[in-house]
């Protein structure tokens, strides 16, 4: 498929738009000198990823992403930023002084990954564009073939919940504990 053919499909325009938004937000997440702004740019990156999922007819995953990430995880991040009193506003010291090695590592990684995928998948087209995946099918897969990982993940969530509370709560000294009990 050449470039002209690629551009002639309207769905690719939508992809190009979402990809640009995603790449721009991704760049700003890792380069922004303002912590709140970086967290909000992550919302942009995740929202455009959700758009890509809709494009690939994965509605359920797209909505899960919006609900869990944009709805809950970002709020958690904002809480974390506020509580650790990360310097709000511009902060020059948010990054290391030596950025070049990190940039080289990530550029090499990108080159290797894209070389591998170009080598392996040139000309392959995604199928099923436009016909939505049946959410019932995902539900049946989750509670049928994948019921053991599903239960493991739910147990993991419970463990994370308890662990998060245990780690983050303030430890009281024995005297304080006694004082609290007598009140």
């Amino acid at each position, binding site marked *: 498929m050449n470039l002209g053919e690629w551009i002639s499909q309207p769905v690719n325009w939508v992809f190009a738009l979402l990809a640009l938004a995603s790449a721009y937000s991704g760049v700003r997440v*890792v380069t922004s000198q303002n912590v709140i702004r970086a967290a909000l740019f992550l919302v942009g990156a995740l929202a455009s990823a959700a758009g890509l999922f809709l494009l690939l007819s994965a509605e359920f995953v797209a909505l899960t992403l919006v609900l869990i*990430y944009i709805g809950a995880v970002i709020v958690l991040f904002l809480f974390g930023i506020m509580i650790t009193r990360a310097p709000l506003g511009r902060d020059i010291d*948010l990054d290391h002084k030596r950025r070049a090695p990190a940039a080289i590592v990530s550029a090499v990684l990108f080159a290797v*990954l894209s070389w591998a995928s170009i080598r392996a998948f040139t000309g*392959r087209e995604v*199928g099923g564009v436009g016909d939505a995946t049946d959410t019932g099918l995902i539900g049946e897969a989750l509670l049928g073939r994948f019921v053991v990982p599903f239960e493991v993940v739910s147990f993991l969530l419970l463990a*994370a919940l308890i662990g998060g509370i245990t780690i*983050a709560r303030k430890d009281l000294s024995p005297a304080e504990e006694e004082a609290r009990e007598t009140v």
Partner: protein
Amino acid sequence: MLVNQFLILAALLFSLGVYGVLVRRNAVMVLLAIELMLNAVNINLIAFESLLQTELAVGQVFSIFVITVAAAEVGIGLAIVLMIFRNRRSANVDDFNLMRL
């Protein structure tokens, strides 16, 4: 749509995440970059699901698992960062050198 366009976008987002993890000094910012990498993996999973059209929508099921585990990871990660901040008055990963010999 070609599958490569999704894979290369995901590779770009993943490399950006790696850059962020390596270059950021604030622990919360490192967690943000990790989220970016996990999201790139999700894009890959959904793209491969679309390419292979598996009977059970395996790619989508796995990306749901990834999202769930990422949510748990953020909760625990932020709790740990909070605890370290309380003890050391800093969220800077360069200050976390207690275990260095």
